[in-house]
């Protein structure tokens, strides 16, 4: 899922201080699971902002839709949006942009910093796993991503800075290539990394687009 962290309160407060009626809009999917921008967090932010800005006569409204990255759900806001002169979105960066695209005349402000694509290690504890580089090598690296988990995104590690199983940048950060070595050794597949991995094709260097097979015609018609 996509993991996000709420922005510092003052930063959010300053963004909306010039407006009169502001909608705080949550997103019910990834950011709700990672406790950054679901309905609970919307209510918390509403309470904080109303307390801090109520004296300035700013009125806040709240809502949380299923997904801000889907037009179907954004459509639900079509009637309500007219009541507001700005929106605080608690969705990830993708959701915020789709919301802004749906209502181009409304200033939209982010209430979270979108952090990464990650996993749930425990309640409130998440770890990055994927940089969405567009050319996945997990098949040869034992299911451990060197682009994400190695601080230097090496394709032929471990480097000389590996520190008894930890990364040189932090004792608490495991060395991804040390783990890759261990896992491939366990599986008897070390020959996978004896070969030199060639320079990566960084497909994430321009705006990404995916059209699944069978949907090309449909996309053409819509364009």
């Amino acid at each position: 899922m996509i993991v996000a962290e709420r922005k510092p309160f003052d930063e959010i407060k300053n963004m909306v201080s010039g407006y009169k009626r502001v909608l705080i809009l949550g997103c019910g999917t990834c950011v709700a699971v990672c406790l950054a921008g679901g309905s609970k967090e919307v209510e918390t932010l509403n309470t904080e902002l109303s307390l801090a800005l109520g004296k300035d006569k700013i009125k806040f409204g709240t809502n949380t839709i299923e997904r801000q990255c889907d037009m179907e759900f954004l459509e639900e806001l079509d009637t309500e949006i007219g009541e507001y002169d700005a929106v605080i979105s608690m969705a990830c960066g993708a959701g915020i942009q789709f919301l802004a695209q749906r209502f181009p005349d409304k200033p939209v402000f982010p209430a979270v910093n979108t952090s990464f694509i990650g996993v749930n290690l425990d309640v409130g504890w998440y770890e990055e796993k994927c940089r969405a580089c567009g050319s996945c090598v997990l098949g040869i690296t034992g299911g451990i991503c060197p682009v994400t988990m190695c601080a230097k995104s090496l394709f032929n590690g471990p480097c000389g800075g590996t520190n008894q199983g930890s990364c040189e940048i932090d004792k608490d950060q495991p060395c991804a290539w040390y783990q890759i070595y261990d896992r491939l050794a366990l599986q008897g597949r070390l020959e996978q990394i004896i070969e030199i991995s060639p320079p990566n094709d960084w497909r994430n260097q321009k705006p990404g687009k995916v059209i699944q097979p069978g949907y090309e015609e449909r996309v053409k018609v819509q364009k």
Partner: protein
Amino acid sequence: MKSGSNLEKILKAGHFAFTGEVGPPRGANVQALREKVAHLKGKVDMANITDNQTAMVRMSSWAAAMICMQEGVEPNFQMVCRDRNRLAMQADILGAFAHGIRNILCLSGDHQQFGDHPQSKGVFDIDSMQLIGMVKKMRDEGKFLGGADIDIPPRMFIGAAANPFAEPFEWRVHRLAKKVAAGADFIQTQCVFNMEKIREWMRRANDMGLTEKVAILPGITPMKSIGMAKYMKNKVPGMDVPENIIKRLQGVDPKMVADEGIKIACEQIQEFKEMKGVAGVHLMAIEWEHKVPEIAERAGVLPRPEV
């Protein structure tokens, strides 16, 4: 000859190579750089010019390498993967070659977090292994990484680093083999203090036939103080300083610690002269360039052969 560099000639003639190192200034202080280099003149076959080492901004390695050349010392242009993408790397290799630089050392680079711009975006477009392959492709095939022809290819003598002391030890000689396969002509290792371990690593490199394909130069760093030894043991990732080194430094008169450090370094160099598969040593006298002539003298590597 692949490059015609002095180091390549020294190695080809079968001499025991002796290389040094110079860190460019934190500014445009050319005079300070010339003075550092002057200590090495005639005492080393080549001097590594570090590339923003420990991720601190310094005069660019190719520019400092040119000043080094003007002072009569052949430079080894270090290039890390942290600060440039593949376009900038190839451009700098062409530029360096055009100005007469003939050796390059291909490195990953310390993570930017260690330096004076920890907020910066680390590039790491390609890794050190892929950089070696790219320089070889430019030299031997006359092609850019992207495949286009180069109008007068840069003919570099290609260096790489190896750390025999980092875990997993079993993998280290295989990673060396990968660097050799990628195209490394010479290897400079991490500072050696654990002789037992490097003997074993060299034995494996010999067994795998790697020392016939690549010139290995173990790294030598004389300890200046007990504090330095402890710092390297405890704080520098990938460094292996055995307790006996620290005990030995502690066992001498406090005024003689630095001298003992040099003594240890010279003993190591003596052993490496005899060790099968070792082609020379790389002396990293960190901020101790003025001691290089004395160390070279005491290690019995002077005069440097003319080739």
